[in-house]
């Protein structure tokens, strides 16, 4: 099946008008597979970090959400060791009116506001709840070590 027009147009618009701090480029051999980078938001422990992610648009897209995963190690309560992201719009709250751009902006926002009450990485979440300052420090160290 040919690539749906929506994916072509989304790709064009992403390239022509990228969201601040976010880049997404499709693989040449698979236009449903994107290499993504997200800059850590200012004021967060991820500031100055550049995080690599992969994004895949399944056959059912946009009726099903894209699959997104961090490739860069990150110390965040809603992102686990494998880079999987706990974000409702990537699961049951997906809407076909959302796009690659909005998904990536949501992930960037998640970096600014970790939610340890709905954790994916239980140990990180515990750390964040018990001693947020120390946990943020670890996040910062990981950012400096892995996300540059």
């Amino acid at each position, binding site marked *: 099946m040919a690539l*749906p027009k*929506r994916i072509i147009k*989304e790709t064009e618009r992403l390239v022509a008008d990228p969201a601040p701090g976010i880049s997404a480029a499709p693989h040449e051999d698979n236009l449903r597979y994107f290499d993504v980078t997200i800059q850590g938001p200012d004021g967060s422990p991820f500031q100055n970090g550049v995080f690599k992610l992969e994004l895949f648009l399944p056959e059912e897209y946009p*009726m099903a959400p894209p699959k997104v995963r961090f490739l860069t190690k990150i110390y965040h309560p809603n992102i686990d060791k494998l880079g*999987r992201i706990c974000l409702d719009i990537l699961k049951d*709250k997906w*809407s*076909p009116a959302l796009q690659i751009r909005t998904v990536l902006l949501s992930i960037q926002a998640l970096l600014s506001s970790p939610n340890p009450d709905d954790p994916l990485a239980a140990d990180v979440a515990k750390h964040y709840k018990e001693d947020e300052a120390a946990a943020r420090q670890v996040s910062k160290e990981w950012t400096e070590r892995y996300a540059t």
Partner: protein
Amino acid sequence: MGNSASSSGRVHHEDTVDFGHLTPQGVYSGTRDWKEDVVTQLIIDRKLAPFYRPLEEYDPSWEDEQILAARKEPPLPAEHESTGTRSDATPPTAKSTHHKRPSISKELPRNAEAAIYKDAAECPICFLYYPHNINRSRCCDQAICSECFVQIKRTEPTVTHMVSEPACCPFCVQEHFGIVYTPPSWRAGIGSEGWPTPTWPDSPNSQRAFDSMRARPGKQKRFRSFDHTDPDVVTVDRIHPDWEAKLAAVQAAAARRANRRIIMRQVGDRLVPVGITSGRIHPLSVEATGAEGDGGGSRRSRRRQQQQQDLNSFLGNMSFGGRDLEELMMMEAMRLSLLEHEAQQQREAEERARGGTEDSSNSRPRAESRNPSSSPPNAEVTSDTTSPTVPSTLAAPTFDVSPASSSTPNLTTVSLPAPQHLRESPPNGPSNHNPVQGPSSPYAIPRHPPPSRMDSFASSIATHETSADLDGYRFLSSESEESIVAREPLLHVEGNDA
């Protein structure tokens, strides 16, 4: 893309509505799981925009030929044979080749087909362009083409998430998503008899046609939201009326699974699991088991019935909390151990049966010391508590039975709501060996097994409760991402049920 527009683009008005089609034009390739006859009727009734061939691009300055050339290729008949299962899914292009050319078409110049796209609207979901009077969401007045609209449906219920919530608006997330459609002031094709036919001036890019495609007077500009019960609204449920049947089917499947029982055979002084009953048979009658129920499984199934049929009578005085989940995980671990080691268990049990006196002399004192007085109030309670024997039985899944129980029947059942979401492999194996099918069998279970045996069950469990929890979780967390995700709805369901 548009090079065949002139050959295939001619619209035959016998099977079109206002120059649009009754069947999708190939934006999506999946199966058509909406009710096609309902959709067809809604299009004919002008309650839903017909399936127009979308434009892949649009520029207001385009000439008619450019517009026609920008239309998406119509779907190939072969595509539908492979994807569609319904016979009435014949694509309009295929149909039209069999029809004689309708006389009306010569009255409608070709530019009419282009004129409908004047001021085309982009569907924010498929990013394609449609005639201006596209469907609008009932709640927030967003454009959505019919092709995308028919794709939207309730999330399919699963065994782990046995609810069916109304589909939400993709734009404003309001429940009971529905659309309203304002047809043009003229009619063409099906149902156009007695209506003014559009008068298309000869010149291309006709301003008049463009205007007549606009909403009817009185309806434009000022938006009001519609209730989902408004007769002008077409809801997702209206074109997917099968959601209730789907939900019922999942509930029935889960109930069958939950009704399964492990069949235990007493070998010497031990109880050895030898099979699993069919879920279709209700193992114990409600009267016999009383209000506390005959095990987690059938309680769950009854709860489902209650949701569906409002049978509150059995359940009024029950309160179940997170215990169900715990029970469920332990029983699943137990079931797995049965699958893996069944043959081995059988041999082992028989061996032990031969030297059984030693075992029982070891186990009995412990049992008695832990539960000095107890004879469980009724068999069902103990039947429940026996289920968490998992950890102690994983390695050698046999059960201590004190000699006092020698006079009891040979078989007992333990409820087993084998949940699909905890594992990948389908249930199999033991059911084939099943020697007993429910309570009617002469070997079937005592409804009130003697307390002594239950004592020893309970004692063997109690010491391992904590590790049972851990085992259950460890089992889950080693699963794939999907399984972990599935755990959330499970918890949710349990919470709701209780």
